[in-house]
């Protein structure tokens, strides 16, 4: 079952603007904007949608052994992390996830910095929220896929570089997900480029006979 599923176009639906606004510090109750400011930001969001190509991929891999410290997968991959092993307790599979907003938007942010920094800020926030949304979207895909199998996705996700899940695991995830397909690269320091690219690990519960709670 360890095949990468590619999502060539993840739809950029409503809601990302609101999340980006909040990310930039928008508080509806206290904040005021002139119509011109509002129009400018709306315009930048629209440009962000044009620039972003939201793509991603994911794969399910069986867990062959799970200890308090290590997650051994059927493909030969082992993740050494207490924190990750902790959230995967009770899971029979991991889901590896990757998503990118593409090069164009990152390049625009870079070019805008110092020239039109306001636009850069808005594009950056939108792209950050878009890739985060994309990971959630891919998890939802797997959630729906496994439901008829009597399994659930745990929805928590964990990225390399957090807690004791070492950043060099990024290389393993990058290779497994074939992320180079989307023009994604890994720097010598294991940072994903283009900048608005994320990977994560989530889990799928072992199958249980569904129970009813009345």
């Amino acid at each position, binding site marked *: 079952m360890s095949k990468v*599923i590619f999502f060539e176009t993840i739809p950029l*639906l409503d809601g990302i603007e609101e999340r980006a*606004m909040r990310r930039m510090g928008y508080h509806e109750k206290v904040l005021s904007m002139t119509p011109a400011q509002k129009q400018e930001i709306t315009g930048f969001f629209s440009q962000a949608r044009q620039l972003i190509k939201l793509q991603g991929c994911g794969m399910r891999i069986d867990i062959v052994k799970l200890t308090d410290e290590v997650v051994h997968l059927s493909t030969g991959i082992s993740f050494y992390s207490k924190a990750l092993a902790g959230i995967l307790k009770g899971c029979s599979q991991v889901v590896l996830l990757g998503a990118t907003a593409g090069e164009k938007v990152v390049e625009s942010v870079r070019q805008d910095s110092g020239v039109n920094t306001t636009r850069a800020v808005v594009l950056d926030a939108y792209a950050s929220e878009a890739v985060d949304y994309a990971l959630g979207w891919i998890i939802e895909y797997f959630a729906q896929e496994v439901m008829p199998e009597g399994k659930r996705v745990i929805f928590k996700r964990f990225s390399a570089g957090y807690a004791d899940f070492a950043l060099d695991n990024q290389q393993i995830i990058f290779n497994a997900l074939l992320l180079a397909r989307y023009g994604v690269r890994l720097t010598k320091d294991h*940072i994903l480029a283009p900048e608005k690219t994320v990977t994560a690990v989530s889990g799928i519960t*072992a199958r249980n006979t569904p129970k009813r709670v009345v």
Partner: protein
Amino acid sequence: MSFANLLKKKIVLLDGAMGTQLHVKGLSEGVCPEAWCRDNPRVLLDIHAGYVAAGSDIIYTCTFGANPIKLSNYGITDACRLNRDLCKLAKKAAGTRALVAGDIGPAGKFIQPFGEWDFEAAVKAFKEQIRGLVAGGADLLVIETMMDIQEARAALIAARESSDLPVMVTMTFDRSGRTLGGTDPLSALITLQSLGAQAVGCNCSSGPQDMLAIIKQLKPYARVPLAAKPNAGLPRLLGNTAVYDLDPRGFAAFAPDFAAAGVNLIGGCCGTTPEHIAALAARLNGRKPRLPKIGGLSAISGPFGHLLLQKNKGLVVVGERINPSGKKALRESLADKDLSLVRETARQQEAQGAQALDVNLSVPGGDEPELFKHAIKELAVLCRVPLVMDTCDPKAIEAALRIYPGRAMINSISGEKSKLKKLLPLVAQYGAMFILLPLDDQGIPAEFKARRAIIDFVLRQAAKLGITPQDVVVDGLALAVSAEPEGPAAALETIKWCQGQGLLTSVGLSNVSFGLPQRQWLNSAFLAQASSHGLTMAIMNPASLETANIRLAADVLSGRDKDAGQYLARFSAPQAKPQSPAALSVQDKISVCILEGGRNALIPLLDADLAAGARPRDIIDSVMIPAITRAGELFESRQYFLPQLVAAAETMEGGVKHLKPLLEKGSRDTGAGLVILATVEGDIHDIGKNIVALILRNHGFRVVDLGRDVPAARIVKEAFGQPGAVVGLSALMTTTMAKMKDVISLVRSRGCRCKFILGGAVLNKDYAASLGAAFAKDGVEAVKVIKSLINDK
């Protein structure tokens, strides 16, 4: 009894969950369910028999995952045979008591334009599965649990091209009320029923409560029976166990509401059992079905939205701008197969209020079918509104209709016999709407009577293929008044007659003004006239303010905008009262301009103030610095958010740049101090650092920005080269913030006593303090902290 007859007779009872039952009966983890069932036929027969005994009128074959793609994951290559064998088992269990639906689930791959899987390859894969189900004796086919409308379409097209069996399609909608691919229930219904599904509905993902709302919403627009197969409540995790809240009684309690809402087929999905189905049967006993009442539906759809074309509703705007005629840049880019202008034009028209987009890609020598394929892949995922395919090329039309993930409209089909023969079957096959152009092989009739005859003829030909008048929009055929003075009158008469006949109408608005100056006035006047005759939609430039406003006004006057809701929404918004110029001094205007981020307005104001005798230094110190400080205060009190602060800072910076040459001549620039900024090695995220640099410069600091991914040695060298400078380091990630320690240690080991300030999303004051550095959470705070660091000297 046939599927159709069964639906007339009763609310049809489907079966319940298969997966749940298989797990109970011993299906192990990691085993292919379909292969396991073939190897354990007794188990499968028992499950099927349980549902038949519970009262199911239709049972699903255990072939949900038996498509070639999913089976290949288990090394199974003969999908056709496995489907046939499992279908035969279902038939054996059903006997004469139930019909058997050949079950087709998602293949586990996303199809273009949403995934990488080629559309035709997907159709082929589904055909292989369907061959087996047909060979096994399925009475109907059911395509279920679809989360991507394009995959549902591929499976439906495969089904219709493989057999004459009835096909039911059910989508799965998540908590947002859309499929994962972003399709809402009504758009899905419009797309699937027009493409030939004999029943449409929803299954899985949610419980009866949510699904009931969907059935209620869909019923008025359904030409086909509606199906619901909810889970036994909302699944949730209890520890790591999936639990469902509804027992059979609780589940069946929704049955009367479903019946009242107009459901025609009902069963259960995950977590349901034969007991749930038996309980449903008991509650539905004797209830009469509500069969679909409408014969046709004038609506088009895309993956993310739909457009209902209704008489007596507001006039619909179809954007006309994706058309290379008279647009050199677009023509050239299309010739180069470059679709960037098409995308941009689509985006602009949507923003300007277009409710659908006309797409014309006709360029001399261009491969129109290929261009349409590419354009649809791009536009289908970009646009929220449906598309109108503007071409007469049958190959382009077929290419477009086959892959467009919605119900499209064709613009246009005339009474020309050879074209009718080719195009009407395509309309019927893909369930499209079309614009009927009242001209024929003899050309464009000057008189209305001849036009009417053509309309009647085309409608009769269409009816022979099952195309209803609701699938047709008649073009009023507005000819250029400059060449045909009677043309507009003939168009209006056509529109008026169609209105009387209950036919929808359209015009290509800009035709009427061709060859004349100031065309917007002619377009607007004609739009108002046509609207009063009942025009349904206009293919027009949505950017034209004149026609857009006339449209709104005409909708009010013709009673199509009830209570003038749309009109009021457009015009009754409080208009900002421009402050009297006399009320603000030039310096006040400079201050407001900075606060509101008016980057383009500041320079003329500064020049005006200079001309009035103000000194550049005074403008900066007394007007601009207080303004940017105020922006910072507003940001700190959350009355401003980041883009407002940055826009203010950029405005300020532009102003300072403008005044700086003048300062050097007549004033002294003391400067607030020197700051060296760098994002540490290994980190490429530097937008925060750039904002800090901008705000520091605003406040008079000289900033040396070393950029991002800067090695420690370079920072050390700069720190030594700039005695007295404050060094600011940024990092976004926990992994790179450790590099800050390296930089500070290296600097200290060389004996440099410069002061450090750190910033970045993952940092805090304690961490900075542990390295002997100051901390600022943002640019505004950085100004204060750096000032205090400098003053501490």
